[in-house]
């Protein structure tokens, strides 16, 4: 085989390796300059066909979840309507809600004076007469609110009472009052007349205490204690316990908030 002194092809190959090496040396990060940006967002709606692999993955979870959500956990003697709760100072639904939540909270902290665990607006749907399912409770309370016991000065409790009266009543337990000209009068807390000079321990939620639905009075607490119990779990536990004990839930209007 003749010796090739000059192979242009090989020479070219070597040169390209050299160039590649040089360009690799230069191709450090500073070899790129950001020149342009474009952005958008996409609405994830029914115009987009679904990926069946995803559906196939979550379907077994969904089937089991739907079965759990449809599980009957208790019974109610009567329909508790959201509409009456929205319009009346007290209602079957608001009393049920507040009583169930305080009953469960008292197991963790027995020194609660009274409760306002939601606003009327926070009660999302009716609770039906007859079977109560897990789903009913999730729909009534879809939010993840946590229960907290606030120690409030009497003057702050007064502001909370003023709010309750001005907003034509809210779901409360262990609290009795009259609303006169949108002001609270004749207020009783846990069987004793309200004393503005005393501190009170009030059960509520992270949402309400943060000023949710314009609630007043929780801004400067003397103390606060998380109960590590969600409102929804309190409601679920209450209904389950009643169901297990064979008791039918029977909410009553007992005149805890009345109007002149």
């Amino acid at each position, binding site marked *: 085989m003749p010796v090739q002194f000059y192979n242009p092809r090989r020479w070219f190959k070597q040169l390209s390796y050299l160039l590649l090496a040089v360009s690799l040396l230069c191709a450090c990060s500073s070899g790129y300059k950001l020149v342009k*940006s474009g952005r958008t967002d996409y609405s994830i709606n029914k115009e987009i066909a679904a990926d069946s692999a995803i559906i196939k993955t979550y379907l077994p979870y969904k089937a089991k979840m739907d079965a759990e959500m449809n599980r009957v956990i208790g019974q109610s003697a009567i329909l508790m309507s959201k509409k009456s709760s929205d319009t009346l100072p007290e209602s079957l639904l608001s009393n049920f809600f507040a009583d169930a939540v305080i009953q469960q909270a008292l197991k963790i902290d027995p020194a609660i004076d009274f409760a306002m665990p939601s606003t009327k607006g926070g009660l999302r749907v009716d609770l039906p007469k007859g079977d109560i399912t897990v789903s009913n409770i999730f729909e009534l309370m879809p939010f993840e609110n946590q229960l907290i016991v606030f120690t409030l000065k009497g003057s702050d409790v007064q502001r909370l009472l003023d709010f309750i009266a001005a907003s034509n009543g809210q779901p409360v337990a262990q609290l009795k009052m009259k609303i006169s000209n949108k002001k609270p009068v004749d207020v009783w807390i846990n069987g004793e007349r309200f004393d503005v000079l005393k501190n009170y321990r009030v059960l509520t939620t992270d949402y309400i205490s943060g000023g949710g639905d314009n609630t007043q009075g929780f801004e400067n607490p003397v103390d606060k204690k998380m109960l590590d119990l969600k409102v929804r779990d309190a409601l679920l536990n209450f209904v389950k316990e009643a169901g297990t004990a064979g008791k039918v839930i029977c909410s009553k209007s007992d005149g805890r908030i009345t109007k002149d």
Partner: protein
Amino acid sequence: MEELQRIKRRGFITKSGLLAGSAALSLSSFDALGAFSADHRKRNTLNAGEKDALNRLGADQQALVNGEVVKLCILHTNDVHSRIEPFAMDGSKYQGLGGTARRAALIGKIRADEANVLLLDAGDIFQGTPYFNLYGGEIEMKLMTLMAYDGATMGNHDFDNGLEGFHKQLPHAKFPVICSNYDFSNTVLSKSTVPFKVFHKGGLKIGVFGVGIELKGIVDDKNYGDTVYIDPVSKANEMALLLKEELKCNLVICLSHLGYSYKNDKVSDKVLAAQTRNIDLIIGGHTHTFMDVPEDVMNLDGLVTTINQVGFAGINLGRVDYYFERYKGKHVNTGSPYLISNQV
């Protein structure tokens, strides 16, 4: 509950004076460049018309002829809150919107068109539907893995079942959890998260780090245990400097669960953007803010830090594309602005 905010549409170019300088770089030449790059990737050659178009570019852009344009596509979500299926058709505000099956299909379509895609999430993967209450986040992690998420940071609700509850779901998550300002050293998550991650895409290096909100007061103490919260602004500056200067990343992304903006002086994405250097993009969350367009904030170096957040529940998928021009030879960083457009 986080307040839902609706941000008014902003004319970013008119508002951001710092971008006015980009007018000097002819819009039309960059548009030509954009069109060129997509084609170029496929063929690696120029046709006569393209050569002609490039020859018409000014002397400043002559480097482009030698260079190559690399496009990076960032897709992002935040606060998906266990929304596996679309919202039920029950008359509620977002009825029929969202859903992982549709999101996955859309992501697949974009991936088919784009060579360099990063898919990221800014936290609050957990909580919001019975899927979480019943399965503790298992299905959320599995579906994100199926969608091939490249990374996510943690939101406050990801602590809802405690550190143990999050840890338990990590075998289902085949993507890194990126947390820079939570020190988990003395917790069960000590080996579960990374403070940053460098991704390599099309020759580019993309640095991603994550900052989370102060947990005290919004998460039950026992759910975050011995997690140590570190000031997000100083940590972000430290991370971004490391990624951009030491690790030579071409782009630095901050996944943030701080929230878009607050009326008080609480640290937010807007505060973070203005008080840091070296961050190109903040993908935000927590406040469930539907931003009509991303917001461009001037950072400490007088450069653009972009903030974007796409509401919650997977109702929207966000997309930010970046185009990089490759220089052969020594590149002098002029810090000149880049062209921003609210379309892709």
